[in-house]
């Protein structure tokens, strides 16, 4: 079943700069998607109150 989704243009302050991103309107709590996390390392301590850290990944070197 297809469902229409409202998409807005937003400016996120991300990694020290401004980033124009598409923002989907979804009837749920806010979610950061994998597209915004592309090129970053996400770490989480899987326990209540655990730390979450996001770091930029170094660029891959060519072989």
């Amino acid at each position, binding site marked *: 079943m297809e469902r229409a989704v409202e998409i807005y243009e937003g400016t*996120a302050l*991300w990694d020290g700069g401004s980033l124009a991103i598409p923002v989907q309107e979804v009837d749920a709590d806010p979610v*950061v998607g994998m597209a915004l996390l592309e090129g970053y390392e996400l770490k989480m301590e899987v326990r209540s109150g655990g*730390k979450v850290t996001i770091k930029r990944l170094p660029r891959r070197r060519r072989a």
Partner: protein
Amino acid sequence: MAGNTTSLQQRRILAARRGDFRAVTFGSRSADRDKNDFVLIDIETGAYEVDADEQELHPSVSVRGCRKRKIWMRRGRLPVTPTASADGSSADDLMIRGMVTAEREAIIQVSLRGPTGRVLHVEARCGTPAFSGHLSLPPRRRCPVYAFGGIER
């Protein structure tokens, strides 16, 4: 330590979302420059904004300390900027800190800038492979970001 303060602040916001207002006390650790700042918290979404003039925060707020539309206001301080931590990471390579909830969800703060330059902070889950887009927000009726002009259609 800055990391602990950030985590404490996020816990307070989660407490505000639960309706436990007494757990939210931003004012005690304010620096001098933040003494006139106010924090406006939407207890449904956990979104909050800091501004020196509470009248600028939200048009529905006309009396200091009042609660309307389930939005709660408190004298507060600016969000903490990450600094060097015990695990060797520094502000240069550490972009965002967050916390894991009791439901084992990773929550981080995302900042959105509106067309007027105002910055809003939204708590968002992250690391959900099922969502391949950039960012999702709840509908207008639930999210104050739209009202503040944070995003445009």
